[in-house]
């Protein structure tokens, strides 16, 4: 081989080496650039994916009650760990201060930093205009007053700031960012990150609305519960009142009924209560008794009216007790006379009970007389007259109802009383015939009676042994 030719060959080989070497470097450059571009794109895609992961996690929170603090703190944690942010803070509108916001929630700050960021107040104003739109502060951003204020007060060098609105009003700002911007580990915050955070703030707004709604519901429930308790308390008090009133009413009703029964026979009282009137009825076998104090007119002039009424009251109270004992109906008193009967309310009655009552009334007065001074004793004697026969019984009139009986049997009973003598129980023929086997009688024969002619009368002596 010629030396010149060898040199040429070497030169040629050197050219080849240089060619392949340059080509190799060129391909290397392209490959490394491509790798980096892919890495960058993948990083952006991953960041988007991470954003969706957060949105998905936030979405899962809905459909149940959201608690404001937990929800926000969890969101900040997701932002820091998933979007690889170093620090995130939420500043809340200060009460009573327009446009001024104060730190409320934070994540990723060291203890000493927390002490610094907690008391800060931030005015979201730029060039005398209120800030309402999200904004980025990255390495490339031009200087701005608000960015510098946030950087210095919240200790985040590079950040994205997004408003959180409720009912169209900005109630808070979320500021999240990094301490460093260095590609590829911490790429510059860009519009893609901003979009992600705006979406997250949208979910925060929805979450806060949910929390607020649940709070309102809880408050309403609490109010309702409190109202219910108050109502229940009132109902309990009212019920207690009503029970008391009811007891009083029952008591009053019983008193009223007792009073009514004092005035009227039970059957008549029931009829009157039910229909508002009581029909007069014929009673075939009534036995009517009259008692009358002897020399009452003279007695009444020897003592005061009050004393007289007191004495009459005492005696008539005891008469009433006796008539009740023998199931007689007290009809009424007329002056010093006491009128009672049996068989006037449809229950048949028994004439012997009337006689027994008459005897007991007489015995009572005689015994009572012994308690009186000697000069008054003659006045404490009664005449008793009893007659059996048909009467008409009932209530008449509209006011001051009183049960009464009418008929000849009644008039005759009065006459039998008039025909009696002090300390004696005088009965008519009809009564005698009904009770002759039960008592011993003294036949007095026919005795004249006012407007009645002569009437057969008997004194009751005693019970048959």
């Amino acid at each position, binding site marked *: 081989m010629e030396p010149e030719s060898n040199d040429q060959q070497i030169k040629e080989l050197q050219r080849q080496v240089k060619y*392949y*070497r340059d080509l*190799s*470097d*060129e*391909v*290397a*450059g392209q*490959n*490394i*650039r491509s*790798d*980096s571009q*892919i*890495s960058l794109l*993948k*990083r952006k895609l*991953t960041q988007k994916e991470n954003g969706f992961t957060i949105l998905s996690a936030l979405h899962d929170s809905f459909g149940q009650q959201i608690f404001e603090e937990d929800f926000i703190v969890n969101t900040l*944690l997701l932002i*820091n*760990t998933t979007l*690889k942010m*170093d620090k995130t803070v939420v500043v809340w509108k200060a009460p009573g201060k327009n446009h001024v916001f104060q730190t409320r929630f934070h*994540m*990723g700050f*060291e*203890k000493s930093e927390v002490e610094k960021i907690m008391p800060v107040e931030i005015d979201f104003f730029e060039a005398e205009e209120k800030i309402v739109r999200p904004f980025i502060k990255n390495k490339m951003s031009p200087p701005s007053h608000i960015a510098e204020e946030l950087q210095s007060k919240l200790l985040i060098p590079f950040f994205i700031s997004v408003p959180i609105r409720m009912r169209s009003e900005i109630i808070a700002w979320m500021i999240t960012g*990094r*301490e*460093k911007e*260095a*590609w*590829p*580990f*911490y790429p510059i915050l860009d519009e893609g990150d901003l979009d992600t955070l705006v979406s997250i703030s949208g979910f925060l707004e929805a979450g806060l609305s949910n929390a607020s709604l649940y709070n309102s519901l809880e408050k309403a429930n609490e109010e309702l519960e409190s109202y219910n308790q108050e109502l229940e308390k009132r109902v309990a008090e009212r019920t207690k009142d009503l029970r008391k009133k009811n007891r009083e009413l029952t008591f009053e009703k019983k008193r009223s009924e007792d009073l009514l029964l004092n005035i009227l026979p039970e059957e008549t009282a029931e009829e009157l209560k039910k229909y508002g009137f009581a029909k007069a009825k014929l009673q075939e076998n009534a036995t009517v008794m009259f008692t009358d104090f002897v020399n009452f007119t003279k007695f009444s002039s020897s003592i005061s009216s009050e004393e007289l009424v007191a004495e009459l009251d005492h005696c008539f109270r005891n008469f009433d007790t006796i008539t009740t004992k023998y199931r007689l109906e007290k009809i009424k008193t007329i002056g010093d006379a006491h009128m009672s009967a049996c068989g006037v309310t449809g229950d048949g009655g028994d004439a012997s009970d009337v006689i027994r009552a008459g005897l007991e009334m007489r015995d009572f007065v005689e015994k009572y007389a012994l308690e009186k001074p000697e000069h008054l004793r003659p006045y404490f004697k009664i005449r008793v007259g009893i007659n059996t026969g048909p009467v008409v019984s009932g209530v008449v009139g509209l006011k001051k109802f009183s049960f009464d009986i009418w008929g000849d049997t009644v008039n005759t009973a009065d006459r039998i009383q008039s025909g009696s003598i002090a300390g004696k129980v005088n009965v008519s023929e009809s009564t005698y015939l009904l009770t002759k086997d039960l008592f011993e009688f003294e036949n007095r024969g026919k005795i004249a009676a006012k407007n009645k002619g002569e009437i057969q009368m008997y004194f009751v002596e005693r019970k048959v042994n």
Partner: protein
Amino acid sequence: MSAKYTSFGVGFSETTNSTLAGVEATKQALSKAGLSPQEAQLCFLFCTSRHDAESFFEGVKSCVGRETQFFGGYSNGSCTNTELGYDGYQVVVGILSKGDYKFDLILKEGIGFHEYEIGKELGQEIQKKDLGRNAQMFLLFDAVNRLEGRFRMNYGTPFIKGMSESITEWPNIIGARMLGDMKFKPTHQWCGREMSKNAAMALLFHGNIQIDSQIMHGCQPASAYHQVTAVKGANILELDNQPALDVVGEILGSDLIERPQELKFFVTLGKNVGDKWKPYSPGDYINRMCVGVDTVGKGLYMAEMDIEPGMEVQLMRRSFEMEYVSIRTKKLIERVKSNNRRIIFGLYINCSGRAAAYSNQTDEDVRYVQSAIDGEFPLLGIYEAGELAMIKDQLQVLDWTGLFCIFSEKITND
């Protein structure tokens, strides 16, 4: 030898409350290991920088015995057999029972600006133990130097150089350079019973315990070789006798030269320690990530200062096959088992940059490690800023790499 095998359990939590996160993870770990608090011999613990280090440590300590020793620090993320997460509130706790082994813990503070000195002092302490090459070492050091406020990486090259000058015989080493996030916030470490900062520390096992590891390379050579012609520390000033920035700018696109802070993230340089013309072999490459650009000197600041003039480097593509991770994991498991060893637990130290969120990967490589283990033994994983492993008998800081380690004990018939 003990008839009872060593027990290990892992717990994980993402709770934002640091104390509670420590408690949750530790209780899980104890429960899975089947240990009482007092039986916890050694506790591995890691959390992200979002946590309060002191509170987390208190939480963990409250669940174990007074004699339990601790080893761990910040990590950008963590994993177990089923869990995986990074850049959040992840914490991971691993608890090791007593076994047929012994361990020593060595801590050296002050690594910032003094990587070489601290490496040397740590090496001396290790050398004093005189454990020889049979010792198994888990090495951790703080990646973040913020002693002057501004971030500066703690370099592994001078640190390892310092160590190598003190250690006559290297033990088997795996390890990591720790960070708690991708913003390089100051970090914390725990060693023994104390919490520390700005430190390097070593856990030295000896006895019936062994660490086997598999490097999961993540970069492939993409360009021609370029010779390094001028270097200042970790700053590569020239490639092929031209400003390094111009060379890579020419390759990657001149528009990037106008945005040098973006350019740095495209650049990974590979150093082939094998035959340069042989087909690509992952085990022959040491990768270096560019962490900054020197716009004045037109240089490239690398994550390590182990690139020297005369070396040839290639631009690397950050790319790997997930199947590769799976196959390598399974192979290591089979290899350990075939040596009549029982696996106590697996440790995966992963480069934070390999996480899917930061790379052009669609999957997490950790998922393939988890799947390959298939619950056969406990897995504790951490995302850090550099992996430490032996390549060709030399301890190296690796970038863009996963390091799968298996802690095992010899099966005995006692």
